[in-house]
């Protein structure tokens, strides 16, 4: 799976948790929390959706690495390599 497809999976996980974000610009380097009022429950739902879609089970200690789109992309890519 290439980066474009992986990124789409991450976006799909994000938008399934927060459909209202789908038509908003997304800065890949800024934490979801700061961009969108994304709280820790949203984040937990996002990680759950990501696991369902990509098979990647993120341990809690790694959560901070997935705070941004680019961070999540790098993490998922690393886990699947």
């Amino acid at each position, binding site marked *: 799976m290439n980066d474009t497809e992986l990124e789409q999976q991450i976006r799909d996980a994000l938008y399934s948790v927060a459909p*209202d974000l789908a038509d908003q610009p997304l800065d890949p380097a800024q934490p979801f*929390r700061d961009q969108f009022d*994304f*709280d820790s429950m949203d984040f937990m739902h996002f990680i*759950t959706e990501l696991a369902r879609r990509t098979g990647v*089970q993120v341990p809690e200690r790694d959560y901070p690495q997935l705070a941004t789109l680019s961070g999540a992309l790098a993490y998922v890519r690393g886990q699947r390599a």
Partner: protein
Amino acid sequence: MSAFRMPSLGADMDDGTLVEWMKQPGDHVRRGDAIAAVETQKGAIEIESFETGVLDDIRVQVGEKVPVGTVLAMIRTDGEAESTAPSAPPTPPSPPAGEPARTSVPSVPAPASAAGSIGNVRITPAARQRARERGIDMATVARGPDGVIGLREVDAAASSAGPSRAPAAAKPGLDLAEMRKAIAAAMARSWREIPHYFVRSVLDMEPMLAWLEQRNADRPVAGRLHYAVPLIKATALALKAVPVLNGQRDDDGGFRPADAVHLGIAIALRGGGLVAPAILDAERLDLDTLMQRLDDLVRRVRTGRLRSSEMTAATATFSNLGEHTADALQPVIYPPQVAIVGCGCIAERPWAEANALSVRRTLEVTVGGDHRVSDGRSAARLLNDLARRLSHPEQL
């Protein structure tokens, strides 16, 4: 035969717009089944039946806005014959028959009407939402015969305007400006009428978090607990132990302590807005079930519908500011409840205990209480009970 009425879903609700019949005449309904959806300032709410029987006669059509107490439909309880008279004369507003004894709220002049306005034109929230979804400019919509712009008027404007534009991606049926009015009305009333007191403590969260981290480490993502879950369970148990903080005030100013803890959970919406639907019997649920209920509630607050029982049953409220926020939250009681528990974010603080100083993760918890019913010592008991329970998380 019993009447299924437009319920009051909060201290500030005067009327609601029926947006969907979820059951049809002739359908069997059980007590607790959602029968209709009503649009309120807090979004669309599913109204549940207090009766078991057959939905007989629908009296209010989709799109109609009616006052609280209006008969929406009749329910033929089991064994009764089908009605021959299609509609009875309207009856004055009163609580539905069979409704569990519960405090209803004394009526206060509601500053915010459920219909917003542009200039002097009143627009219902449902109409506003539909206009937004279809890209209709409100200024182009002709008002109806009663001077109000409702769904019918917007639909008429939409059909003359041609193909619809892309819908705005917001929660259906929710107008954040209307929700803000509802919050303002409820909180202004609370602050005006309730002699609040506040009691706070900083609690050691280290035992609970250490236990939780270990538990979550062994589980797949979907089976993990959010830290709010043990906190909610401990709060519910502590409220159960201090009955003077758990219940509702009734119309006569009397306090009715509740047997169960139906804990309202304050949930924020992106873009502003706050709703505090209840998790019923929170003190009796195991942690995994509580996690599922919380998940479900958060998702429905943000993208779906709440149910009428969740909007009216809360016996106390839990408000957690959450991670990366601020040290403490001084909460305002949601009437007719008499207490609220507010939490800041978990933060490392110096901790002195047994003549030693260490750094621990801690949480500042503030209890707001109603002096007409209790005083600060009761809240202090609640905090001490909560602290004790959080130091033995495995027992939650």
